[in-house]
C-alpha cells in the first residue's frame, strides 16, 4: 500500500533524512522510534507531502499507486484527511478552541464526503462513541477546553478517522499524557487499527509505547533508518549498536538493580544537523566503531559495517 524508496530531505544546514526506504501493507502497524533530531517526525510529514518548504525532497513515496513527492497540492489535499490522516502530540493545539467538537468532526465529512449537516453530526457522534468517549451526543456541543487531555486526544483521533483513512500516522500521540491515560490511548489505537484494518504508523521516542502497539519497528538515528524488523525481534535481539545502546539505556523497573553500579549509557550526544558525520551517523558514539565507519555510509539492515550482512 505504501512504498518509500530512497527518500531524502535536505535543508541548508544538512541532510535531515537520508535515503530512507520502507514499505507498509494494508492494516499493518509500524513503529518509528528515535530520539529528537533523528528525522522520525520529518519522515512522517514527508509521507503526506508536508515536509517544510525550505527543504529539498528527493526519492519517492508511493501510496496506493499515487506519487506523493512532487505531486500537486490539490492531489495531496485529497490524499490527506481522506486516505491518510495524522494525529499529533498536542491535542489542544490540533483542535480549534473556538469551535464545538461536533462542528470540528463534521467539517471534513461535509467537505470531503459532501454530507449534510444532520448526517455529518450523526456520524460525528458515532465516531466519538467509537473512540470510547461516553455520552457522545452531548459531547458534540462541548468545546475543546471543557475536556481533559486524554479526552481531547480521543477527539483528535475521532477527527482523523472521520473519512475512514487507510493509514493513520500518530506522531507522539501520548507524550503529553499521564501514563495511565497514555496506556488507554495506545490500546485504542491498536484496537481501531485491528477493527478497521487500518494501517498505523506510530512515531515515538518511547519504545515501551511502540512495543504495545506495533508489529514492525524501524529505528532512526541522525536521519538514517538504522534497523527495521518485527517489533519483538528488534527489541529482543537488537543488531545495530545504536538500537542496543538505546534499549540498554532505558531505565527498567527492577528490585534487584545494584544502585551502586552506573546505568548503561550511550556516550556523547546526538550531533547537530550541520555536524553529522558523512559515513555512519552513529560514528563517534559507537562502541564497536571500525576505521571506515566515519567516512563510508553503511547500507543494509541493520545499516552497520560491523553487524550488517
Amino acid at each position, binding site marked *: 500500500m505504501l512504498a518509500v524508496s530512497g527518500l531524502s530531505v535536505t535543508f541548508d544546514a544538512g541532510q535531515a533524512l537520508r535515503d530512507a526506504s520502507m514499505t507498509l501493507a494494508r492494516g499493518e502497524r509500524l513503529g518509528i522510534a528515535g*530520539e*529528537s533530531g533523528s528525522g522520525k517526525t520529518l519522515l512522517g510529514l514527508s509521507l503526506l507531502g508536508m515536509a517544510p518548504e525550505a527543504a529539498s525532497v528527493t526519492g519517492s513515496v508511493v501510496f496506493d499507486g499515487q506519487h506523493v513527492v512532487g505531486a500537486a497540492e490539490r492531489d495531496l489535499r485529497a490524499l490527506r484527511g481522506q486516505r491518510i490522516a495524522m494525529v499529533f502530540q498536542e491535542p489542544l493545539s490540533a483542535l480549534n478552541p473556538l469551535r464545538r467538537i461536533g462542528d470540528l468532526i463534521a467539517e471534513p465529512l461535509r467537505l470531503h464526503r459532501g454530507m449534510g449537516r444532520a448526517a455529518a453530526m450523526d456520524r460525528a457522534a458515532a465516531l466519538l462513541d467509537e473512540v470510547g468517549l461516553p455520552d457522545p451526543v452531548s459531547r458534540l456541543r462541548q468545546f475543546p477546553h471543557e475536556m481533559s487531555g486524554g479526552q481531547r486526544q480521543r477527539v483528535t483521533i475521532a477527527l482523523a478517522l472521520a473519512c475512514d483513512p487507510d493509514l493513520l500516522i500518530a506522531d507522539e500521540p501520548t507524550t503529553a499524557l*499521564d*501514563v*495511565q491515560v*497514555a*496506556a488507554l490511548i495506545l490500546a485504542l489505537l491498536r484496537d481501531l487499527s485491528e477493527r478497521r484494518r487500518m494501517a498505523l504508523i506510530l512515531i515515538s*521516542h518511547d*519504545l*515501551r509505547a511502540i512495543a504495545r502497539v506495533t508489529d514492525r519497528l524501524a529505528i532512526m538515528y541522525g536521519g538514517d533508518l538504522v534497523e527495521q524488523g518485527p517489533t519483538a525481534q528488534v527489541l529482543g535481539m537488537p543488531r545495530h549498536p545504536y538500537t542496543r*545502546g*538505546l534499549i540498554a*539505556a*532505558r*531505565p*527498567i*523497573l*527492577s*528490585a*534487584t*538493580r545494584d*544502585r*551502586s553500579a*552506573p*546505568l*548503561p*549509557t*550511550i*556516550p556523547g*550526544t*546526538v550531533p547537530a544537523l550541520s555536524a553529522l558525520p558523512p559515513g555512519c551517523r552513529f560514528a563517534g558514539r559507537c562502541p564497536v566503531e571500525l576505521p571506515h565507519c566515519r567516512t563510508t555510509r553503511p547500507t543494509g539492515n541493520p545499516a552497520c559495517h560491523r553487524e550488517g550482512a
Partner: protein
Amino acid sequence: MLLRVENAHRSYRLPRTHLLRTAPLIRAVQDVSLTVGRGEILGIVGESGSGKSTLARMIMGFEPPDQGHVRLNGQDLATLGARVLRQARRQVQMVFQDPYDSLDPRRSIGWSVAEPLLAGGMDAPARHARAADMLSRVGLSPADMARYPHEFSGGQRQRIAIARAIAPEPALLVADEPVAALDVSVQAQVLNLLMDLNRHLGLAMVFISHDLAVVASIADRIAVMQAGRIVELGTTAKIVTTPEHPYTKALFAAA
C-alpha cells in the same frame, strides 16, 4: 533528620467562576509527612496534578504550608526570619525539568554557575575557581565557562544547571523531573551523574518524576502521590516487588 515534612497541607484558590460564589479551592497537598536523611535519595512519583511540584516548592521554602511544618535540620522554615531563612535556603537547591528555561541565555555559563555563590561572601577569584571546579565535577570542561547556554545540548545544559545547584554545597537537592525533557540516551548519563554526586558528596535528594522506572533506578525510598496525598511510601525494593496501594499497582500496569 535533614528534612522532615510533618502533616503539611497546601491549598490554592482557583479563579472565581461565578460572581456570587466563593472561588473553588484546590487541595494541592494534603496531610503529607515524610523524612529525608543525610545522603538519602527519596523518590516521589505521581501523575500531573498529584501535588508533587507543590510539595517541592514547600520543601524549597518558596511557600509555607497552610498547616503542618517543613523542618530543615530541625528548624521550621516558616518561623525563620528573612536572614536566617536565606542561610537555611543555601542548604537546599533545586534542578528543574527544562534545562532551556533555567539558565539565563544572556549570561555565560561560568557566570550562571558562580551566581549562587554571591550570597556566600566569596571573593571573585574564589567564585571563579569554584565554578570551574563544579563544571568539571559534572563532566564539562572549565574551558567552557565563557560559552553561552545556546551552545550546549539539552543534556549538557542539565549538567550546567546541576553544577549551579551544587555550587553552594547544599545538603539537599530537589530535582523536579530533571530528565523528563532529555532523550533516552542522555537520561541515563544525567541519572548517573546524580547518583555519583549522591555517593561522593553525600548529597541527599528529593527526586520527583512521573516515571516509575526512572525513580526506581535512583531512589532509596519511594513515595507515591495521588491527588495531593502520599498513598504509599516504602523502600524501592518493597515498592517494586510488592506494591500495596491500588494506585501504585495501576501505575505499574501502565508502565
